[in-house]
Structures are given as structure tokens and as C-alpha cells.
């Protein structure tokens, strides 16, 4: 069964910070949204939860690129996560969830699963 999804509006362009991330709350829990104005596309969204600590902090990491791929470094233990795939660069077995993201006029929308059983920070 394919889970039902919707494009949830989470914030506006004014909320974004260039070359950095912000955190939003969605039906699917906390998500980090990054705005990298020098790339195309410029918006990326991954889970806000750092899989190594379990804490919600990834939006507060430093962004950049490694071998051309967009990444964020966890502010706690400094592992890098590919913003396009969610793959951790230091540990092959670790991935964070990636969310499709689009700009709709002035609004940022994320494609998230419609909440069924409440599962916070999953």
C-alpha cells in the first residue's frame, strides 16, 4: 500500500536564511529546510533529526559542498549528510529521510505523508 501524501505549506520565502537551514514542524515531524541560492535547484529538505544523537538539530548545521554534492554537517558530531540523497558520508549504513520540496508563489511546500498513527520524530 502506498502511503498517502500531501504538499504541506510549511513556511514562506522570508523565513529562509541564505546558505543555511531552518526547522519546520510537519505532519511527519521535524524537517530541516535549506536554501542554497547559488545552486539549482536551491531548496532542499531532509529530516531535522540527527540520527547519531537522536536530537533535532540538523537545520542548525553548516552547509556546503563536498566533491560538488550539497551537504550539511551535523552541529553535534560533525557527520556530513548529502542534501539530495540523505546519505551520511561518514557511515554508509546511515541515511536521513529526504523530502520533495517546491516553491509555490511565496510559499515553501513539502511532500509529506499524511499523518495516520501519530509517530513523532520517526
Amino acid at each position, binding site marked *: 500500500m502506498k502511503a498517502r501524501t500531501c504538499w504541506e505549506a*510549511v*513556511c514562506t520565502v522570508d*523565513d529562509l*536564511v*541564505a*546558505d*543555511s537551514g*531552518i*526547522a*519546520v*514542524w510537519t505532519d511527519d515531524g*521535524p524537517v530541516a529546510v535549506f536554501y*542554497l541560492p*547559488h*545552486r539549482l535547484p536551491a531548496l532542499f529538505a531532509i529530516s531535522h*533529526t540527527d*540520527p547519531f*544523537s*537522536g*536530537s*533535532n*538539530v540538523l537545520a*542548525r*548545521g*553548516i*552547509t*556546503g*559542498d*563536498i*566533491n*560538488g554534492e*550539497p*551537504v550539511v*554537517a551535523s*552541529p*553535534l558530531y*560533525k557527520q*556530513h549528510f548529502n542534501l539530495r540523497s540523505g546519505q551520511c558520508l561518514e557511515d554508509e549504513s546511515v541515511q536521513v529521510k529526504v523530502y520533495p520540496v517546491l516553491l509555490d508563489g511565496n510559499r515553501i511546500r513539502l511532500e509529506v505523508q499524511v499523518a495516520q498513527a501519530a509517530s*513523532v*520524530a520517526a
Partner: protein
Amino acid sequence: MSKQTLIVIGNGMVGHHFLEQFSQSPAAETYRVIVFGEEKQLAYDRVHLSEYFTGSTHADLAMGTADWYADQGIDLRLNEPVTAIDRNSRVLTTPKGEYTYDQLVLATGSYPFVPPIKGNDQDGCFVYRTLDDLDAIQASAQSAKTGVVVGGGLLGLEAANALKSLGLQAHVVEFAPRLMPVQLDDQGGALLRQKIEDLGVQVHTEKATTAIVPGSDARLRMNFADDSHLETDLIVFSAGIRPQDTLARACGLEVGERGGIVVNNQCTTSDPNIHAIGECALWNNRIFGLVAPGYTMARTLSAALNKDTGAAFTGADMSTKLKLLGVDVGSIGDAHGQTPGARNIRFHDEQAGHYRRMVVSQDGKTLLGAILVGDNGPYDTLLQYALNGIELPANPEALILPESEGGAPALGADALPDTASICSCHNVTKGDISGAIDAGCTDLGGVKAETRASTGCGGCAALLKKVVDSELEKRGVEVCTDLCEHFPYTRQELFHLVKVNGIRTFRGLLKQYGKGQGCDICKPTVGSILATCWNEHILATDHVPLQDTNDTFMANMQKNGTYSIVPRIPGGEITPEKLIVLGEVAREYDLYTKITGGQRVDLFGATLSELPEIWEKLIAAGFETGHAYGKSLRTVKSCVGSTWCRYGVQDSVGMAITLENRYKGLRAPHKVKMAVSGCTRECAEAQSKDFGVIATEKGWNLYVCGNGGMRPRHADLFATDLSDEELIRTIDRVVMFYVRTADRLQRTSVWMENLEGGLEYLKQVVLEDSLGIGEELEQHMADLVDTYQCEWRTAVEDSEKRKRFREFVNAPEQKDPVQRWTSERGQRRPELEAVSS
């Protein structure tokens, strides 16, 4: 093919090391391994036995775990002593049964020698070797006041340390005229004695005990041959070791005249199927009572059992470096100068309590041995000279003189021969390292992975890097000093480019001198450089994405994503009113409160959105940001100084406040700590800081580039008897020179160690202005002082900047569900189980 059986008797440090080596080798596949241990515990670290009395448990001291043995498929049988060996049928007997072996390893160690003194077996007499011995000593010590150790050697002093940590008045009784007679000479022994007596341990030398009888004031009385006596509640014999060769004797193996199982270079006994390693083995008529030679034997035997025909034990260096009761003692090679024609160079500083002796060959070209008491600083360099026969410099005395008197810097990597041991944990030589580089390793990480060098205790890290760099350079490989993949420059070069070209943004620098988008290495580095050069607010739009999270939110992130707050308390001086405000704020937001080592108060557990509210309250009460989050000045610690203290000669608090207010907010390559002491008693511990100031009758002495923490370094005396103005001018110059020339995340201590020309060069630049940049450095500092702003004040007053402090931008009321709390000792703390995987 059915497996053969290898049995190891003895589960001590050497036996365990053998199993570690052997189980990783190809031959492990062809053997079933059984281990018998007499003690009930798994192999543990006997070298650090005295730590058992200061809180370490068997688990802390254990060399391995039962799981490890199970994983290796080793049949571990503890508390099962072997009682007999039948060599003809190759069968062992224990109380529980009989076992057949194909190959047998004796790692039975040694037992303590108890001098044949009448009455040495009564209650209150102990030996010091096993955890059971220690348990017995501890039980007896509970009702005791005094304790005597018989034996003033290495182990005896360890035992004295143990008695002291049990709270006993400790005595050491030694038969010889000095302590550590094997390793030290009279002068060194006398200094060690003085230092140990200063620590409250009584030392009695030239005492031959004739009898132990019941005492009148204490439980026991020791009578000495010179008719004197000593009363004590317990006695620990630690007068040397004897090889544990009982089983070997009983089954007819060849043993030495004075004990020890005779082995050849492959550690095999007179029976080709039986081997012996460690303290029970007698090689070339010698017993090796240190752990390192035992490990070498273990490695040799493992290789020999793998049919490595080249494996051979060829003796071992008995040089030792240790801390006894906190006193450095080192002894290298022919410490007593017994080589014919040997000459001595001695340096004895009674003031500092340092004794150093070098024994050099007749022609003065080779170092034969050395003795160090009080400071082991020169040990590593001296050992390399002695072990490798490196020709001594024309003025060999420089090796043991303090640096300020023309002492020589440490030996360069180039001067070391291929046989020089770089990593003693994994037995890696300089030759192994150059071999790894020839085999394709092109950087430090590769060499570490290939050779395992510097992956044990890590003590050789700096030396390893020097060797790798020099070997790479020799091969024409340019050592890459690029900051990261985005900038082909060092931090120092980037600083220069920013300053000279007036570049004010990261984008601007990237466009002109870099490539790509940047990363978590170059962004904060450039952010720090821009802050030092132009001092714009770290949350200015262009700079926000450059900062580490702690700088971005001007607080220190903790493991659950909340932050801690440290307001500045200059010099550690605070009014009761301000102290009350801190308490009130902490109570209102339920913040866990702790006093820091830098004389201020840390408030933990604030959420992102609470930070600006909390700071509004703190600023209203007159607080400023403490920069605990930044690579910048932390605190200037101080003692109370001449205003209150009867010993103080200057106002240390006043000077600390002046310095803290002057340098606060300055962005540097790493954090910077300072301290000011009001007299030579040094209560502010200034010599462990990046900048330490100590008051004198005439002014201030300045110490630079000290460090506490992981790798402590005493600060170097830089200038003496400075006036207030001279002190500030000197610190201005040193700080700015550090900020301009250091590498990323390089503390002043490491900067100094890597500065070509070292302390003397820094003195020339700063005190004599040899580069002619003194005024420029002072001007730069003055500009920074003039443009200081409290980052938090600016942030809370700016609604745009405050927007950054929203936990979830679309849900202001949403609490972070993983931040769960519990309480401990009356305060809130994170629930540890909050972490999910």
C-alpha cells in the same frame, strides 16, 4: 584436518598479549586454544595496580573481556591452577581434570620475593601483586594507621603510593643506601627521596630487618640490624620478584641457577613443544621484569608458531620512564656509567628539583645512558640518541640544559635512523613508516591505517606526523597544507589575502581565491578571519551561514539540542545583586546551574526560542555575552590579590578585569584563556593558560602559550617586571601575532611548538620588533577594542536577527518532543534515554 591443541598456562598481561597476537595470525586456524588462569579474574593491568585503591575496578584494569575470549573461540578456564605437566604423554593435570596439548606456552609470571625474616608470615604481613593481595591489604588498612613497604625499588614505591592512597602514614624501608638502586645513582636517589618525603612518605635506607615481632604502640614492630626499630600496623613486602618456575622444575625443564625457565631466541624451552614468555622466562641468563620485553617475547613466539623462521627475541631495552608518587623518574641504558671510559655530564637544579645525568662514551659521540629525576621532559630525545647510536651534537650538555640556558630542541625526524621506534604500542619503526609510504600511502591517515602507528596511546602523534611529513617531502611529494577542497591556501595565507585585499565577505573570498560552495571547515575559519579583520557582527546577513551553530546562536549546544548560557563575569568578580539575577533567571527557566572552571556560571537547558528572552533579562541586569561559544577569549581567572590577601603584592583582580574587558570578543584561531595571580604562590594557575600573568614586587611577569586540558603545557616565561602599560602592549602584540599566523584550531601551545625559532623568535618579534610590525599589531588590536559590541545586546534589539531563534518557524508553540527531562540532585537534566537510534 583435525586441529591441534595449544595450551597457555597463565592469564596475566603477557599471556593475554600473546593470545591477542596469536588469535589474529594464520596459525590460529589450525589450533584449539585453552587458557588456564590461577586467579579468578581475567588478565588485568598490573602496571597500574595502585589505581585499584583510587577508584579503578577490575573491569577498568582488565586487559580484555570474557566476550572477546569467546569470540576468538578460546576456552578460558580461570581459577583453575595447573598442578602438573607430564611431558612424555603431553598431558596437564588440574584439580578438575586432565588435558592433552600439542604445544604448551608457560606465561606463569613471577611471585614476590619475601626476605627470610623471622616473623614475616604473621597477620599484617602482605605481598603486592594480585587483586586478592590488594583486597587483603585494604581490609587490614581499615583498622590501621601506619604501613611499611619493605623495598625501595620501582614496585616498592608503587606499593607506598597505594598505602598512602589508603590513608595510611606510609614508610619505605630499603636495604641499599638509596631508593631505586638499580635505576638511579646517589644524587638522583637523594633527590627522589627528598621529593617523596615532601609528599609525606618516610624513607629509611640502609635498614636490614632482622625480625618482626608484636609491637607495643602498633600491631607490629620491625627490628633492624643497627638496633633501631619501627612500629607499624601492616607490612607489605615488595623486595623484588622471582620467576614462577615451579611447574617447569617439577617436569624437568631446564631452569637457571637462580630460577627462570631457560628459553632460546624463539622463546622455546629445553622441550621443543614447550615455550615460555614474560617474567618466568630466562633468556641469556636474564629475567626481564618489565612488561614491554614480555610483549616482545609474546610477539616473537606468535611469529615462531606461524613458522616465521626470522622471528627472534634478542634482548630488550630496560630503559624506564615513570611517575612514582607523582615524581618523574627516568633511567636509560647504562645509567651507572659502567662502560669503560664512560664520562658523565650532570645537571642539578636544586631550586626546581631537577636532576639529569648523561653517560657518554669516551669520545663523547655516543649516549650510553641517562638518569632523570623530577622532570622527564628530555627522556624521549635522550632515548632516541641512546637506542639508535645517533652521534651526539658538539655540545651534548645542551640536551639536558633547560631551554633558556641554550638547551637543544627535540631531535628532528631526519636525524632518526630507520630502526628508531616511533610507536612503542604497536612496535612501529621509522623504517616501517617509510616502507608504508613506498607501498603507496600518501598521507598521515593512510600511514596510520597501514602501520597502526599512533593508534594505541597516541603519545607519538606529533613525532609520527613529523616523520611522515619529512618522508613525503624526501620523495618530492608536496605535503598538502590546503585548508580544504575549496581553498588551496593555509589559514595564515587566507588571513593575509583578506587583510591585504580588503575582502569583507566569504563569497568575495571564494570567488577570487576558492572554488565550489565552501564547507564546515573553511566557512568558520574564514568567518573568524573576517571577524578579526573587520569586526562586523557575526550575525550580519553575509556572516550568518559561516558560523558554527554555537556562534550562530551565541550559546553552547548540548547533546539534546538545547543550549547553555555563560554570561561574562570579568575576573570572576560579581556583585550579590548580579548573582541573585543569575539565580532568578535560572529558576524561572528551570536551567541546570553549574560553576565553571573559569570562575563563572553556566546555565544549561535553554531552548532556542528561550535564548533571546533570557538574554533580555541578563542584559537588563548589566550582563554581557561571555563568548563561551566562540573561538575567542574565554575568561581571565584571578586570585583575590593584594586587596584582601596577606601575601598579595599586586591587585590581580583589577588587572584581570582590565585584560578581560580589553580582549573580550576578539576572534582567534582557537579559544584563548588567561589568568592573573597576585603573588608567586600562583593561586590563579596562570602558568597553565595561553597568557598567564604573575605579580612581582616590581610589576608583572608574563608567561605565554601554556595549556591545561588534554595535553598540558607549562607556559614559557616571556618577560619580567612589566608595568601595567608594558604588560598590555606585550600581550597585544603576542595575541595579534598568534591570530595572524596560527593554523585553524591551533591553540597557542601548539602554535609555539611549531613556530620556527620558538620562544626566542617570538621574543625577537614582540620585544625587539625584529619584523618592524609591532606598531601595526598594536594598532590592529586598538581598532578591535574600539569596535567591540556585545553580540547578544545587538541581537536582541534586532527583530530580524531574533527570527533566527525560532525552534520551528511555522509552529511557535511546538515543543521539541525529544527534549525530555528528569531531575537529579535537585536540578533538571536531560533524560538519557531520549536518544533513539
